[in-house]
């Protein structure tokens, strides 16, 4: 089949699904809607596969122009798609993991009366995400960028009757928008500098440019990335976003949308390579986010919140990789993370489903037996994220840590601390949910097949995902890296020059420490289930961490409240006391002048005649004088 047509088909299928489902949302049953939505995503996946098969990496990417879009006075930005290694990789993740999550949703949402709407929005999200990764220029990517933001808003606030959910949805959208400011600034800057927004053209023209503008552009891009990928300072929306249905959390807030920032950075890696300053910023922001989020994850009691902070933390790792200039490692981790984090979220969803909506891990426990499939898959996911050897997470995270060690041992130590915390809270979660004895009241039951099949597929991927980019050390040849090299220029510059011995030592060290941490966690949570008590009773530091470093409160005090104050007072003072009186003043002045002058209209004919005479005399006098 025609490759161009195929490329267009990939985003077109989900879009068609969204439109059909939205218009027929009242007529379709939940299962029919879910089936249609899933089928379309599978179709998109199949199209991606076909594209991949017809794709020759050696030839580089191809651009498929769909439509003229913004064309004015020398600006010519078409609606065009770009098919290359990077977009193909992302397309696989989006459609592949997406299809599984759609399938899962059929079971998860079957009882919801607005299931069709849900699938419409999920399809719309997939469409937007595909545009994001397939766009051949920044502006098309920005369509997807904003589109996924909107869908994220819609899906977080899917259960719109609860005001807190709506607030969380708005928070997510607004924070993303703050990032978008950076994104747009970067785009206008790049456009002015290069006269185009096409990726390939910009990357070509950028090579060798030494320009402080590049630092600005990359910083703006990174600001956009922090919004979408929940990095400091714009990360607080992601935990709140867990208000949405769990499949949404899995698809949007774990596997795909939140990795958009990483994707964008890899996409424009050639620019970032020109701005070492930005790379350092990214590195440290990523590190700080990874540690901060991991520390918060230690004390969370909501099953989804733990996973959310874990996501933020893992995204931090990816940014560390980007900051280190190892774009392939970042993409590798994006891929494996998509597998195991989606798995974990779906597993959590299965648990929540089994317990009829319960999310607090203090009221779980001992679920190993009732939900056996879920338990096993969740366990695999946990092991993967903890980075135990030979799991996918092990390879990807290890690659990042190796790059970090190459930069500085201190960085490595920090990341190691993060990894240990990750292992700790993940196993705490696992043990508290599945081990020990049941502490809740509902009657747990295993989820239907539509939900467990995706879990099983994802657990296989979580285990085997590492094969995609198997390092030389284990007999692989870094397939993913070489594949991506054709698309992302920056990958060509990365090099890992550690000796095999060093790598092995580092791996061993990590593994041993993780093992120790797991053992401790087992003792604390599996054997006797230590629950977090009242926050007020905690020691200061722990309370601070448990309350998420009070970042939300800080933002509220720093931004939300002053903004509300500003809004109120601008209206009360500037508007009502200054601007409105200006208008009123003009009106009143006109009235007052009229009021004064009307006294002249006495109605007395003699007086008016006199006035006329005076006027006549004056007029004559003036003409005489002047003439």
């Amino acid at each position: 089949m025609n490759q161009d047509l195929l490329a267009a088909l990939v985003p077109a299928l989900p879009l068609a699904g969204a439109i059909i489902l939205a218009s027929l949302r009242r007529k379709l049953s939940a299962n029919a809607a879910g089936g249609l939505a899933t089928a379309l995503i599978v179709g998109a996946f199949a199209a991606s596969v076909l594209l991949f098969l017809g794709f020759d990496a050696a030839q580089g990417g191809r651009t498929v122009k769909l439509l003229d879009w913004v064309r004015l006075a020398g600006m010519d930005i078409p609606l065009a798609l770009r098919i290359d290694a990077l977009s193909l990789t992302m397309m696989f993740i989006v459609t592949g993991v997406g299809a599984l999550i759609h399938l899962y949703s059929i079971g998860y949402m079957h009882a919801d009366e607005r299931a069709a709407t849900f699938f419409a929005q999920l399809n719309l999200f997939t469409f937007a995400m595909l545009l994001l990764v397939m766009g051949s220029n920044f502006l098309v990517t920005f369509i997807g960028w904003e589109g996924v933001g909107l869908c994220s808003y819609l899906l977080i606030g899917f259960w719109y009757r609860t005001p807190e959910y709506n607030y969380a949805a708005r928070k997510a959208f607004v924070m993303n928008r703050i990032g978008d400011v950076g994104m747009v600034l970067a785009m206008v800057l790049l456009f002015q500098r290069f006269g185009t927004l096409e990726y390939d053209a910009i990357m070509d023209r950028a090579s060798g440019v030494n320009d402080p503008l590049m630092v600005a552009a990359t910083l703006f891009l990174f600001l956009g990335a922090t919004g979408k990928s929940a990095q400091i300072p714009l990360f607080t929306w992601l935990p709140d976003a867990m208000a949405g249905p769990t499949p949404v959390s899995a698809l949007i807030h774990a596997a795909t949308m939140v990795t958009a920032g990483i994707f964008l950075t890899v996409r424009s890696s050639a620019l970032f390579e020109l701005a070492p300053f930005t790379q350092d910023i990214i590195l440290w922001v990523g590190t700080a986010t990874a540690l901060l989020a991991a520390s918060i994850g230690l004390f969370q009691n909501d099953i989804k919140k733990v996973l959310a902070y874990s996501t933020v933390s893992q995204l931090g790792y990816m940014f560390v990789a980007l900051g280190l200039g190892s774009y392939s490692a970042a993409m590798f981790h994006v891929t494996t993370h998509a597998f195991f984090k989606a798995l974990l979220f779906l597993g959590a969803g299965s648990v929540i489903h089994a317990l009829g909506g319960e999310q607090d891990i203090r009221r779980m426990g001992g679920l190993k037996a009732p939900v056996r499939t879920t338990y096993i898959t969740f366990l695999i996911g946990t092991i993967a994220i903890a980075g135990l050897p030979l799991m996918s997470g092990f390879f990807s995270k290890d690659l990042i840590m190796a790059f970090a060690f190459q930069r500085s041992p201190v960085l490595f130590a920090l990341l190691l601390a993060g990894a240990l915390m990750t292992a700790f809270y993940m196993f705490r979660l696992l043990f508290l949910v599945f081990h020990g004895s049941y502490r809740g009241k509902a009657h747990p039951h295993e989820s239907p097949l539509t939900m467990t099949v995706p879990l099983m597929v994802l657990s296989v991927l979580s285990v085997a995902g590492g094969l995609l980019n198997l390092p030389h050390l284990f007999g692989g040849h870094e397939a993913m890296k070489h594949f991506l090299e054709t698309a992302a220029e920056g990958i060509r510059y990365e090099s890992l020059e550690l000796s095999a011995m060093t790598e092995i030592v580092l791996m061993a060290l990590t593994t041993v420490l993780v093992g120790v941490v797991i053992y401790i966690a087992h003792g604390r949570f599996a054997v006797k289930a230590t629950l977090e008590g009242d926050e007020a009773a905690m020691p200061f530091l722990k309370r601070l961490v448990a309350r998420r470093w009070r970042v939300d409160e800080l933002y509220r005090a720093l931004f939300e409240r002053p903004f509300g104050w500003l809004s109120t007072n601008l209206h009360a003072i500037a508007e009502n006391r200054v601007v409105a009186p200006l208008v009123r003043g003009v009106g009143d002045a006109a009235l007052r002048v009229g009021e004064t002058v009307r006294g002249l209209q006495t109605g007395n004919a003699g007086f008016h005649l006199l006035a006329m005479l005076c006027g006549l005399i004056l007029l004559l006098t003036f003409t005489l004088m002047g003439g």
Partner: protein
Amino acid sequence: MEQGILTAIRTVPLDHYVLLSFLLFGIGAAGVALRRNTIIVLMCIELMFNSVNLLLAAFSAHHSDPRGQVFVFFIMLVAAAEVTVGLSILVMMKRIVDSVDVDQMNRLKG
């Protein structure tokens, strides 16, 4: 036709005619402003009309152009119409407010 008597314009300077009509006009105008009796105000208006007529006639004779006198004729027409209407308004006014005082007619006061 005896030229001597009837061609004052040849012996009296035109200026004097102009001054005379200005004087009459000024007196009329002052009268309108001065008096409260509407009938006298109307008469003063007639006086102003006539001063203008005189001026026109004088110029007409000076230039030997009969058109100026035709103009005077038309002014008389209008004056006659104006007086009939003006006097009937006066009668109405007397009937309604029982007064012919112009200062009573101040309904246009702003």
